[in-house]
């Protein structure tokens, strides 16, 4: 079934390319395949047993056994959540592209190819198989940024590609070293070796390392870390993001921030935390400082941006910083008490909620920006609007809800994740949580500044005739905004699916 789900968007992409130059038909076919993938994901969600401690829908076929390669796929609480998020964000992005005349059949095909890459990445349990999808997803993303977007998109796409490639090469080298030392590429097996400490010994012994074994293990860890730190991104490996997000078309940015950036956090949870817990614990200070910097600096930088897309790009870095902070805090704490396990579970549950919530909210926010751009002839400067709530009350109201969700207002989807992250991190790494609160505060400052400058004050005479959301747009936004309330008021929808996975992680990260 997972294979079918992964291949469906790929086949859809080929179909879209084959339907000819008819844009309307291409977008319809793309939407059908996107919705089909979402329905299959819902079927997975429905059939997923949240109490089962392990991988579900698992498929394991030997591929090249001598090289440790196997076709090994499956999902746990994290995997099912990522599948649902990817499928949802792709459908939202396709809906946003519906009225964008610049997006032709190639665009829609690339979106589906990217979805295939995302599904593959979130279900693969063998490094080689996983890495192929990880890299494949980069190719459609590169062309989506390169072919549709702002005037500096060529430079932005090159920066995005090169940054990610540097990270990927470091990651590949790290895993080649691991394979040479252990003969394993399987994540589940490697996690057992990592948690028992055998990985460090095996690396030193089998790679004929004459120095301190810990140093070699740390070197391998930092290589793997770089790959995920670029993708997430973590400060200081983040400078590709504001430029890429602001230069790519808003519909592409929805995909990048809603689904693709989650690949980095997924890597932290699926690979770094289970396979390198000792190394993360050893390097906790620089890791926590990087996480704090990822939260605080972009929040401040977002405040002085003049471009709405750049503001929300920095906001994305800041929001994913909370996830990195929680993962690093969990790894940094050495206690094995029941209280520690509870706090670790809280922090990790918060991460999963934050991943899903941010994906949904960020995709919605960039869609609102896309609509604003389309109605204003391509403008998106914060100071170029004003008083929009009088001329576009529905648009302003719904975007306001999405902004408040991003801000972490109780009752909306941003709150439970951030609350649980801070609840856990305050107990595990109090100093890091205390400094990171500044990021929460600044998030409120810059998001309220956006509301004030764009929606309040006197109406800019240029936009007095700006049309509000159409009926069709309102109907499309309704389920998205509704989901924000549902997750905000009933987070058990997600926590109920992931709690066994989280409990296993929390139990696994012991020293």
């Amino acid at each position, binding site marked *: 079934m997972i294979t079918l789900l992964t291949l469906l968007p790929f086949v859809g992409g080929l179909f879209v390319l084959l339907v000819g130059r008819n844009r309307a038909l291409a977008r319809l076919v793309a939407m059908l395949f996107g919705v089909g993938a979402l329905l299959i994901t819902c079927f997975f969600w429905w059939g997923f047993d949240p109490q089962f401690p392990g991988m579900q829908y698992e498929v394991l076929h030997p591929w090249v056994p001598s090289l440790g390669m196997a076709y090994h796929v499956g999902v746990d609480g994290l995997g099912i959540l990522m599948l649902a998020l990817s499928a949802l964000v792709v459908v939202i992005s396709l809906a946003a592209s519906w009225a964008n005349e610049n997006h032709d059949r190639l665009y829609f095909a690339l979106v589906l190819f990217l979805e295939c890459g995302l599904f593959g990445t979130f279900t693969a349990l063998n490094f080689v198989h996983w890495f192929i999808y990880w890299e494949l997803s980069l190719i459609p993303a590169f062309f989506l940024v390169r072919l549709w977007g702002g005037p500096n998109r060529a430079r932005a796409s090159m*920066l995005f590609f090169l940054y990610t490639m540097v990270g990927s090469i470091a990651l590949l080298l790290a895993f080649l070293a691991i394979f040479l030392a252990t003969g394993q590429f399987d994540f589940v097996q490697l996690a057992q070796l990592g948690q028992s400490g055998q990985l460090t010994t095996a690396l030193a012994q089998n790679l004929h390392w004459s120095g301190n074994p810990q140093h070699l293990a740390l070197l391998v860890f930092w290589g793997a870390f770089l790959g995920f730190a670029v993708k997430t991104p973590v400060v*200081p490996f983040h400078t590709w993001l504001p430029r890429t997000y602001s230069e790519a078309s808003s519909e592409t940015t929805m995909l990048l921030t809603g689904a693709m950036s989650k690949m980095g956090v997924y890597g932290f949870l699926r690979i770094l935390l289970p396979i390198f817990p000792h190394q993360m614990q050893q390097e906790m200070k620089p890791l926590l400082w990087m996480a704090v910097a990822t939260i605080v600096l*972009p929040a*401040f930088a977002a405040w002085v941006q003049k471009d709405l897309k750049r503001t929300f790009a920095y906001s994305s870095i800041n929001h994913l910083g909370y996830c990195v902070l929680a993962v690093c805090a969990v790894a940094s704490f050495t206690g094995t008490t029941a209280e520690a396990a509870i706090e670790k579970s809280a922090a990790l549950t918060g991460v999963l909620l934050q991943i899903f919530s941010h994906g949904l909210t960020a995709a919605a926010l960039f869609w609102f920006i896309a609509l604003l751009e389309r109605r204003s002839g391509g403008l998106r400067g914060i100071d170029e609007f004003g008083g929009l709530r009088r001329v576009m009350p529905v648009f302003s109201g719904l975007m306001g809800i999405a902004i408040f969700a991003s801000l972490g207002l109780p009752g909306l989807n941003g709150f439970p994740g951030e609350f649980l992250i801070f609840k856990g991190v305050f107990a595990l790494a109090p100093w890091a949580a205390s400094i990171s609160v500044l990021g929460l505060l600044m998030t409120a400052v810059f998001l309220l500044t956006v509301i004030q400058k764009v929606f309040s004050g006197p109406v800019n005479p240029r936009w007095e005739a700006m049309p509000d959301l159409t009926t069709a747009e309102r109907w499309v936004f309704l389920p998205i905004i509704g989901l924000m309330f549902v997750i905000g008021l009933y987070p058990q929808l997600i926590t109920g699916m992931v709690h066994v996975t989280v409990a296993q992680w929390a139990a696994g990260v012991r020293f």
Partner: protein
Amino acid sequence: MITSSLIVFVGLLLGWWFYGRKPILRATDPDALERLQPGLFRALANRLYVDEFYEGTVIAFTRFFAAFAAGLDRWVFGGAVKLVAWIVTGFGWLDAGVDRFVVNGGFDEACREVGRGGSLFSRFENGRVQRYLGVIALALVVLGVMLLWGHRG
């Protein structure tokens, strides 16, 4: 209870002292407190300068730090990336220069020399018997000169 009641009565007394004894008849008349304590009145009228205090401290620092964070992003992190890009581009140019002028240049020059040598030697091998006999004669002369020179030595 007694303390709070006392505070209430002191407040009432102060209110009567300022405003009850000599009521303000017109809106344009100065306030009693303004007449008696102009400094205190100004401070109260400006909300004890709390807003100004925040503007000069917390908000000023936040503005500065936001500009600093954006600058850090643009100049330090972005600068580091640019530096790496320049270094890599520099190496690229250096490599291209070595390729073009040293490797290609040397190889091309060697090829040209071989070509020139070939064209020079081709003059001796043009298919005409007269030229071959001439070359043989020249070679014999050179050989004879060398033998004679060696014999004398």
